[in-house]
């Protein structure tokens, strides 16, 4: 079943433009729970209450306040907030193009597919040009009254647009303390690199499945039927005592596994 477009816009690159539709690129497969009242097993409601009286405050009486310094708030009125909203526009402006990974994935928030909206030829030409140039575009547009930033990326011949977080939502490495100088020995480092080499391969997402989701659903269904499924215990682990001997044993085990695999194939 085809998905519904959530927004329409116009990708603008200099004097070139490609009309596009936005589609969510992800499907929510999480197991969802509801908050319930313990006694009645009925759903709960949320309300804002006054801190002193404990009384419910209706939404008409609520105001928005912004903290200008600890403990001091300035009330911002609805009209004032509306005035600050960016002007509506259908343009998705491409600001610059960067080599892959210059935009660290820490910035990525939500992925969308772009689909052609009338100009299919232009759409696939832009996707091909991006792939040929091996570039990621930085885009800016206004959607749902907010200014958005996004990364334009061609994936398997199709355009994707991934919204980016704001600068104050991302903790950058430059904000972090520098890691201390190495304390590993040359032998440990050589062995660690060898072990990485033995485990190297391409990224294949089909290798990985959310098995826990299945277990949770099975558990819930069993309980719904009045059964009492068994649960495991939780233990905590401790750090490795001897790095060198653990690494050595790991490499040996990996090599043995490889050899027996090769024998099986032969």
């Amino acid at each position: 079943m085809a998905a519904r477009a959530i927004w329409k816009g116009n990708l603008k690159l200099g004097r070139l433009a490609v009309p596009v539709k936005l589609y969510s690129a992800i499907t929510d497969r999480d197991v969802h729970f509801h908050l319930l009242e313990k006694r009645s097993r009925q759903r709960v409601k949320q309300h804002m209450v006054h801190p002193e009286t404990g009384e419910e405050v209706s939404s008409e009486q609520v105001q928005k306040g912004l903290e200008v310094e600890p403990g001091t708030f300035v009330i911002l009125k609805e009209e004032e907030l509306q005035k600050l909203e960016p002007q509506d526009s259908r343009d998705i402006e491409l600001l610059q193009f960067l080599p892959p990974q210059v935009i660290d994935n820490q910035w990525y928030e939500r992925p969308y597919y772009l689909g052609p909206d009338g100009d299919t030829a232009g759409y696939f030409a832009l996707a091909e040009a991006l792939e040929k140039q091996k570039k990621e575009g930085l885009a800016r547009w206004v959607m749902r009254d907010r200014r958005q930033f996004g990364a334009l990326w061609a994936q398997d011949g199709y355009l994707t647009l991934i919204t980016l977080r704001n600068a104050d939502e991302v903790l950058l490495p430059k904000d972090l303390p520098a890691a201390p100088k190495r304390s590993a020995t040359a032998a440990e480092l050589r062995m660690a690199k060898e072990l990485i080499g033995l485990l190297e391969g391409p990224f294949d997402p089909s290798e990985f499945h959310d098995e826990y989701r299945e277990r949770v659903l099975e558990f819930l269904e069993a309980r719904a039927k009045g059964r009492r499924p068994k649960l495991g215990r939780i233990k905590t682990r401790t750090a490795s005592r001897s790095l060198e001997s653990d690494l050595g044993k790991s490499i040996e085990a990996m090599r043995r596994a490889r050899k027996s695999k090769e024998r099986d194939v032969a």
Partner: protein
Amino acid sequence: MPRSTKKKEGGQDASTRPFWSGTITFGLVSIPVDLYPGNRDTHVGLRTLGGDGAALQRRYFSEKSGRQLGDDDIVRGYEHKKGKFVIVTDEELDRLAPEKTRDIELKRFVPLEDVPPLYFDRSYFLVPSGGSSKAYLLLAESMAAAGKAGIATFVMRGKEYLVAIRSDRGILRADTMRFADEIRTPAEVGLPKKTKANAAKVKRFEQAIRRASKRTLATSLLTDEYSEQLLKLARKKRNAGKDVVEVEVEESEKAEVIDLMAVLQKSLKAGGAGAARRKRAA
């Protein structure tokens, strides 16, 4: 999946306590680590205030009786049939994860550029715990040298994650990813079949792309203009003494960041110094 309703309400613990504690396993080497969020959800915090300027609190009420509920009056339920719920606790969900799935077992190392951008979700910084900083630093250094990220799946707080463990300037980061079945294909979305693009058109786009190409991202471009304007307006009104209220607040977002840095620094330093002492003694 929402965890519990109890977080943040109390106010004080969120800043120093890790989001989660677990173990990275790399072959037979195990490295206990604490996870701290690398992203913050809120930009500028607009608080909800009452008509008299008091900071309002979010509370839960019984839909049936209208009674206000405390944390102990609330449970989580899964709706298995319309209106029918199965109750489940956080502890039960944690115990549903088999022992090995609580470890971040690095089974495969891949070039980071192999992972399509669509996959990435959130970032967490990892901090060594339980005397693991030597193994931690070794893993960070060798992954950086190999230019690889370690891929693993593990269960954290009631959800299984696909994750890329990578070295970011000597600090390990866990970048969660979506599972393949959580990402739609172009066909599922209903995008048209690919058609051969007109070569002249492609060229024109390529020229435009080259003209606008840069080597580095000016992160200043990504500042939240709206938040800045909000702050500007609020400061102007404060200086004019208009609509100003004094409110008792919980710890601010900023404290969280500073604390993470302190935790990292302390934990990495402790391990480094210890290792150096041992070496001298030997």
